[in-house]
């Protein structure tokens, strides 16, 4: 009785997601099959409702895969696709390598301090993303703070702004909390007597870590990796501000096609390709979350 009534609560969020999330994707898919046109909005064909069914038929006949064909002809799209995946994957790997020791370190601290440290990791996330990335420009630019510090130390200057290195740095910086928190959650929940049991059975502290703590924390690592990889693959602000014109990523391509070239069908087609690529990681992420939910 009560359960069924609780299910009624789902109606509002369902409607919201249908209107503002699912339906718009259909529009993107439809638009990716259209052609660019000098009109407002800048694409054709459009459904002429005044002709009724014939209008719909004419519209359907006007759809084709031409935009996708165009994507395959231009080397730029393939490059952007590959470098998006490469940068997101490299970024995820680096995040795992530096996020794990941080999360593990926090989980070793006394309970009071642990809470404060978790808070400290979340806090930057609450401050503007754009501003945090902007701060890196001042640090990384040729006459920036990094080079001032390097010069003081007698080291050669580096020029990494507008390179992939800067983009990776920005990705790692911006997504670090998303990696640390899921890892911390599993490490914190871990029963300390398991480590004692491992040591009791003859495992050294290091071996106990690798044979017990680490394998048990893998679901957290997977959650963190997916939580970072998926949005990073479509990231726009970071490659745009830190990567300069040399770094191609799909998020930036969609933005450019849309705002600069006003080629809405191309932007939609790239979005569909990105979405199709991310479907598997997104489904994996959902399975992971469903497990946690249960």
């Amino acid at each position, binding site marked *: 009785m009560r359960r069924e009534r609780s299910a009624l609560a789902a109606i509002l969020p369902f409607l919201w997601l249908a209107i503002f999330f699912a339906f718009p994707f259909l529009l993107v898919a439809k638009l990716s099959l259209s052609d660019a046109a000098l009109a407002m909005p800048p694409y054709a064909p459009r459904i002429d409702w005044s002709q009724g069914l014939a209008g719909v038929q004419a519209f359907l006949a006007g759809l084709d895969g031409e935009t996708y064909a165009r994507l395959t002809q231009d080397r730029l799209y393939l490059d952007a696709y590959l470098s998006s995946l490469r940068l997101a994957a490299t970024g995820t790997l680096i995040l795992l390598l530096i996020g794990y020791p941080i999360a593990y370190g926090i989980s070793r601290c006394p309970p009071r301090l642990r809470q404060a440290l978790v808070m400290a990791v979340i806090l930057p996330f609450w401050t503007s993303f754009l501003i945090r990335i902007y701060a890196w420009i001042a640090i990384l630019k040729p006459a920036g703070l990094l080079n001032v510090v390097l010069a003081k130390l007698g080291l050669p200057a580096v020029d990494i702004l507008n390179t992939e290195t800067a983009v990776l740095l920005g990705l790692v910086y911006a997504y670090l909390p998303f990696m640390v928190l899921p890892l911390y959650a599993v490490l914190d929940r871990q*029963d300390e*007597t*398991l480590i*004692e*049991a*491992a*040591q*009791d*059975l*003859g*495992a*050294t*502290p290091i*071996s*106990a870590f690798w*044979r*017990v703590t680490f*394998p*048990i924390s893998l679901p957290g690592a997977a959650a963190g990796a997916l939580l970072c990889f998926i949005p990073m693959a479509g990231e726009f602000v970071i490659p745009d501000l830190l990567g300069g014109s040399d770094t191609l990523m799909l998020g930036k391509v969609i933005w450019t096609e849309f705002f600069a070239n006003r080629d809405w069908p191309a932007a939609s087609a790239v979005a569909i390709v990105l979405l199709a690529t991310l479907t598997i990681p997104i489904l994996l992420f959902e399975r992971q979350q469903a497990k946690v939910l249960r």
Partner: protein
Amino acid sequence: MSGRPQSPRPQIGGIRETFAPWADPQARPLVRFDGVSKTFGDTTAVDDVSVSIYEREFFALLGPSGCGKTTLMRMLAGFEQPDAGRILLADRDIQADPPHRRPVHMMFQAYALFPHLSVAQNIAFGLKQQKMARDEIAPRVEEMLSLVRLDGMGKRRIDQLSGGQRQRVALARALAPRPRILLLDEPMAALDKKLREETQFELMALQQTLGMTFMIVTHDQDEAMVVADRIAVMREGRIVQVGRPAEVYEAPADRYVAGFIGDINLFEGRVAASENGVVRLVSGDGTFEAEGTGPVGETAWVAVRPEKIAVHAEPPQQGVNTLAGRILDYGYLGDWTTYLVEIAPGRTLRAARANATRATDRPLGCDDPVWLTFATSSAVVLTR
């Protein structure tokens, strides 16, 4: 208490009659706690404990929570360092050994089974740490599985097991590397009563079959009485008495032990005489005689267990250790009936009567006048 009859099984009661290495001055203890103390902040968890545990002994540490029994066990396992004193294992001081180098394995209270490993992998964990050859591990795991009656369950995941099965996996995992001594930390706390009683007998049979030394920590006096060769009763970090279950029950060292293990009736008074192994005590409830010795003129207590007090509906013939009162209340426990008898305003005693016959009618009821008697040999004198 009903053990599941299994044959052939060792008749532990008989074996225990003759097993008494602690009485032999030549015997070398397997484990020796020597003046061990441990404090956490302001609280003293273990206070100058000295006790020895012998090869093949089933030793119980009994006490209420917070009495230091778990800390004492964790110091033997190596998880806590004593602040003072030494712990010797086979005559060797193991102070400097980290937990993973001690041939002492523990069965944890909540089992601490590794959730990411199967039953067999859990049992093999300690063997792999010993760098045992791969082709030796598998048969040992099989042997352990059948020892705890989990044959064929090796591939199961931990979350597919019942509470009782988990308990047996934990036991098998701790036993597999053949420790010199197995530590059991409240091993049956998570089981229901029936399963607990079965498991107690299985544990005893296992210990006898393997010829191993077990040390159990428990707050359950019945459990300690059933499984152990000797019980050490702990209170506030100290061991107040060590002895066979019957000794601890029938000849408690002080009022604390007497009250902690089973029910007890106490009469406080002054020792009037102490001769021929019998003490006469003058108390507010009357004059009593009990076996033992006591300092004449000093305060002492005569202690008598409820089941050793006889309840009569008619006044008995004049004799020692007789009290008159009325039944305030009673409780029927199936095998026993417990009576609460008021012997003076606000002063009650407990008496228990075995229901040897299937009595449907009640010979005694509330407010009935009754007379209580107990034999001199059934009561003990306590001076503390």
